[in-house]
C-alpha cells in the first residue's frame, strides 16, 4: 500500500516537473505554438538564439542590401528595419499566406530576409514603428 502510494506520488512529481520544464522553456503555450518555437530555435544562429532568449526578438541581415532588421515575437507587424544605431526606422509587414503560429511566421520572415530580401520587401507593407526608444537593443 505504502509502496503504491509512493510510486503514484513519484509519477505525479515527474509529471509536474515535466510541465514545469515545458513552462520554463516555452511559457503557457499550445502544443502548436511550442512546435513552432522549437523549429524556430533550431534554425536560429547561436547569436540570434541568445538574443531571442533574452529579448524575444532577433536581428537578421538582409542578403541584398546588408541592412539590419529586427524580428520581434509575433505573427504580424513585427519586422523593423533598423538604422545604423539599431533604432527602428520603418516597419515592414509581410507574413506567410496561411494562418501559422508565431515561431513559424518569424522563421519564414528570417529565411526570406536572409535569402530573398528584395522579394520579401516587394510584398511587404510599411508601417510606422511603434517602438519605444527604451526597447532598443544595441
Amino acid at each position, binding site marked *: 500500500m505504502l509502496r503504491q502510494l509512493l510510486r503514484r506520488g513519484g509519477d505525479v512529481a515527474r509529471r509536474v516537473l515535466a510541465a514545469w520544464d515545458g513552462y520554463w522553456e516555452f511559457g503557457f503555450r499550445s502544443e502548436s505554438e511550442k512546435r513552432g518555437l522549437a523549429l524556430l530555435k533550431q*534554425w536560429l544562429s547561436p547569436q540570434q538564439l541568445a538574443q531571442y532568449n533574452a529579448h524575444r526578438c532577433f536581428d537578421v541581415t538582409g542578403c541584398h542590401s546588408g541592412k539590419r532588421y529586427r524580428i520581434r515575437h509575433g505573427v504580424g507587424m513585427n519586422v523593423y528595419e533598423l538604422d545604423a544605431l539599431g533604432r527602428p526606422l520603418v516597419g515592414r509587414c509581410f507574413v506567410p499566406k496561411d494562418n*501559422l503560429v508565431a515561431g513559424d511566421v518569424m522563421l*519564414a520572415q528570417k*529565411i526570406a530576409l*536572409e*535569402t530573398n530580401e528584395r522579394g520579401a520587401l516587394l510584398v511587404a507593407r510599411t508601417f510606422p514603428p511603434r517602438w519605444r526608444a527604451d526597447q532598443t537593443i544595441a
Partner: protein
Amino acid sequence: MAVQIIMDHSGDSRHEFNPEDAAALFKAEQRFNELMRGGYTGAVRSPTGDPTVIRRFDPAAEETLFFPRLVGG
C-alpha cells in the same frame, strides 16, 4: 533518414523518408514539386547553419523546410 518539414497551423507536419529507398525518394520528390507548385518556398541549411532557398529537389538534403508564399500583412 531525411525529413521534409511543412509549416502549417499545427506548427508543422513532418515527412520522414529513407533517401536510399528509390520509391521513398520518388515520393519525396513528388511532394517537393507539389509544394513548389502550391507556392511554397523550400529551404535547407548549409553546414554553417545559414538558410538557402532551393527550387529543385535535393535528394542529398537531410532536412528541407517549406513555408507558404509570403504576402503583405
